[in-house]
């Protein structure tokens, strides 16, 4: 996004004519938001209405789906549906922490890079390029493996591969926006760098970063599940989707064990991608297509 577009976006007011629904609320965005909202509600309220205890055996082991246990039971006789629903309590907060962490690290580095310029900028950006040269899952895997098997280390591992994208994005924004008159004026008036950045630059730079973060949410959910599937993440008996699919792969013919977590991941990722796409179409005019 160029500076002009950014300012245009920032100063744009919604039209007075009475649109039936906001421009960004297209069908996919609506579906995506509903799905995400569903999982958010599940994550918050599940302890109140869970069909069964996610950690305790409730029926025969590896029992096929029945009315009482719509997704059957796993190898320890635990209710797969309850475990799937409880999985949202791991996946959503962990993914949010990852995105938040990556945003903070990425924005700080990006801002430093954009404002400092010179060799600081060059070094930081080469580092960013290098990090982006690795396939994300392999680098995240390396970091997580060194830190040890734990869901908290997965967070760190994924932040380590996710921040460079934001850093590069914010740096570009800062470079474009710092030349705008109001920023130069703020600097001329003696505003400190951090104040200028937070008050005058960031508000204009934020929308593409929000779009990127939304679009990344689904990918992060997938990465968390993948690392857990490999065995680097949540430890049993935590109901975590990736770990549950590992169990499903071990008990291959009991298809219901992996069905729940698979569909859960699929819907969350799909929902996040729909919302991200919709936001991008509205906030980033370049990508609007026929």
């Amino acid at each position, binding site marked *: 996004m160029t500076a002009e577009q950014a300012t245009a976006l920032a100063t744009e007011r919604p039209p007075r004519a009475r649109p039936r629904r906001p421009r960004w609320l297209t069908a996919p965005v609506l579906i995506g938001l509903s799905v995400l909202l569903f999982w958010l509600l599940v994550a918050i309220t599940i302890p109140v209405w869970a069909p069964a205890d996610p950690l305790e055996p409730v029926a025969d082991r590896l029992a096929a789906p029945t009315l009482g246990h719509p997704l059957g039971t796993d190898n320890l006789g635990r209710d797969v549906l309850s475990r799937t629903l409880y999985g949202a309590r791991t996946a959503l907060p962990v993914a949010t922490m990852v995105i938040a962490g990556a945003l903070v690290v990425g924005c700080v580095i990006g801002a430093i890079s954009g404002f400092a310029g010179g060799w600081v900028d060059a070094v930081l950006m080469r580092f960013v390029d290098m990090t982006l040269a*690795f396939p994300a899952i*392999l680098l995240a895997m390396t970091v997580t493996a060194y830190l040890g098997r734990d869901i908290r280390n997965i967070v760190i591992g994924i932040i380590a591969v996710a921040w460079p994208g934001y850093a590069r994005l914010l740096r570009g924004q800062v470079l474009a926006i710092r030349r705008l008159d109001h920023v130069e004026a703020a600097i001329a008036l003696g505003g400190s760098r951090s104040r200028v950045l937070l008050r005058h630059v960031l508000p204009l730079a934020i929308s593409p970063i929000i779009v990127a973060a939304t679009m990344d949410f689904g990918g992060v959910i997938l990465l968390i599940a993948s690392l857990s599937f*490999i065995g680097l993440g949540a430890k049993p008996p935590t109901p975590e989707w990736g770990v549950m*699919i590992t169990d499903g*792969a071990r008990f291959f*013919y009991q298809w219901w064990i992996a069905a729940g977590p*698979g569909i859960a991941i699929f819907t969350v990722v*799909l929902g996040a991608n729909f919302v991200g796409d919709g936001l991008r179409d509205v906030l980033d005019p370049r990508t609007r297509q026929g």
Partner: protein
Amino acid sequence: MAAYIARRVAVLPLLLLGLATITFAIAHAVPADPISSVVAERQLNNPEVVAAARAHWGLDQSVPEQYTRYVWNLVQGDMGTSFRTKRPVRDDLLERLPATLELTISAMIVATTLGIGLGMVAAVKRNRWPDHVARLFAVTGSAMPVFWIGLVVLLIFWAELGWFPGPGRLDTRALPPPHLTGLFTVDALLHGDLSTFWNAFRHLMLPGFVLGWAVLGLISRLVRASMVEVLGQDYIRTARAKGLHERQVLLRHALKNALIPTLTVVGLSVAGLLGGAVLTEQIFSWPGIGGYTVQAAQSLDYPAIQSVAIFAGALMVLSNLATDVAYAFVDPRIRLS
């Protein structure tokens, strides 16, 4: 052109050094002590054993010393010794590379043919049902965890319907073809052994499709967008006006131009393919680098994990270079300088 390629190749060692530095930095920024994964737990209290192990693995040296030695060894192609297999990591990787190459190349073929086909159909039938179906198919592939699609596909097409063979590169009773390239399909063909070729080919289909499906979204999306743009150009109107058949207009005039930007994205999907291969191989018991990586991660085999990361990073750097060069060949408007 030659000068451009020469300059890009000249920077390669620097890039590889950067990759090595990053993995080394990760290994040393982390408080974990690798000694605990090479020495048995009850021996950890025995200072003699620990000291001997440290000396053996070079962990008793200072960090700069370790770094110099690490980079120097890498330059000589020595990636260290795996904690788990106790063999040189390089040998482990080279042995498993052909299986991974065969899988990723098949997946790449699936991803590009399906991706271009879907993108084209979507652009031509824009905003009508083929467009929506194509998008749904692409989006579904990228939103499902690849290891889960693998399970589902195996369950349906192998266990239930029996249309495709199960995990592995060949039927259990079949012998691999004589080793030339290590790609079973290619080796079998070179020896005129059609039954082994067919065997290997059928084994490739499910994992290749699964991995290809996971990455084709990027390609189909871009083909659609650039096709839509190209179809609005004057020269397309001219081609139609002079009475060319619609198929000719689409394939010879539109697709050719629309494919140019797609090249970049194909290069970009190499990352997704390499990452996805790790998980796909695990599900399909594919004896490649991916499965090796998972085992390395599970047993905290640091030299192996680190080497795979560098190896994959190097592959990506090379594929980026190849993409850029190919781009220049295909698009005469680009002057590399």
